[in-house]
């Protein structure tokens, strides 16, 4: 297990780790520059991948949850997903064939790719207290990749907004109206048959 926070809020993530009563014995990494989202074409969190011993991605970008805290919101039962992960760990059974796994995730569009670079410039400028420069780049990034939550939502707290406030619900409505685009696969974790 490798957990990667697509986040610059190191102290908040540290509190998550310290508050975990079960203890965490796996690496928790900080990806303030969104290196992972560019490399794996990730557009929202949580995104989970299962990767085998030979570094084959057997379950590409998957919207999976560790608990049912937000099930009322997204309608996904995390128990079925956790069962699917346990099955793969124990037996190697996968949810997709190798053929299905290849090409299951759409590549970033050129605009989405460029947006990730502008986001990166924005966070660097924000850290250097160049707020105008940061805002300029955040605005371009959000315009280029309107459905990328790792840009739209992640930038909210960095631009003085609230990622759980009104603008979040506006983003949800906008995303829903666009047919919920996601760079990855949505499935419940069990074969329907």
């Amino acid at each position, binding site marked *: 297990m490798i*957990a*990667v926070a697509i986040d610059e809020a190191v102290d908040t993530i540290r509190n998550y780790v310290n508050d975990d009563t079960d203890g965490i014995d796996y690496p928790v990494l900080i990806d303030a520059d969104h*290196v*992972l989202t*560019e490399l794996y074409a990730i557009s929202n969190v949580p995104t989970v991948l299962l990767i*085998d011993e030979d570094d084959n991605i057997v379950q590409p970008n998957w919207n999976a949850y560790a608990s049912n805290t937000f099930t009322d919101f997204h309608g996904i039962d995390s128990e079925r997903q956790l069962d699917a992960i346990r099955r793969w760990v124990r037996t190697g059974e996968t949810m997709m064939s190798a053929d299905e796994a290849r090409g299951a995730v759409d590549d970033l569009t050129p605009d989405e790719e460029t947006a990730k670079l502008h986001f*990166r*410039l924005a966070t660097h400028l924000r850290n250097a207290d160049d707020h105008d420069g940061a805002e300029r*780049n955040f605005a371009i990034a959000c315009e280029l990749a309107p459905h990328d939550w790792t840009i739209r939502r992640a930038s909210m707290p960095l631009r003085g907004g609230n990622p759980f406030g009104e603008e979040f619900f506006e983003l949800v409505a906008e995303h829903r109206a666009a047919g919920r685009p996601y760079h990855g696969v949505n499935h419940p974790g069990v074969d329907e048959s």
Partner: protein
Amino acid sequence: MEAGQAVVIESPPLVTPEQVEEYLGWTLKPEGLCRDERCVLVPDRDALHTDDGVDLRVVTDLLDRPIVVDREAGLVAIGAERSQRLGAVRDAKAPDFSLPDLNGDWHSFADHRSKKKLLVAFSSW
């Protein structure tokens, strides 16, 4: 950091050959742009290396890496080689990356080779 991983550089887009090596790990040689055993041919050396310096936009084009220049801020952002992401989405091969943990110690994905891995991207936002 992983060679070829995304970077943000405080620099104009025109740099010295030494800076290309420092920022990107590629060396300008007579046979092309080289890193370790790999060399990329430079079809138009004059466009790459002008009197004013080496153009990072031409370098990144040859290396198939995206680039954004913010002249006002004096910053250049360079993304990873596109072939790495294409390897993930098209060939289902997990690209390597290195990131720091909460203590600032760097971890490499490649350290977990020969194990089954659950890679989870999460956030506080």
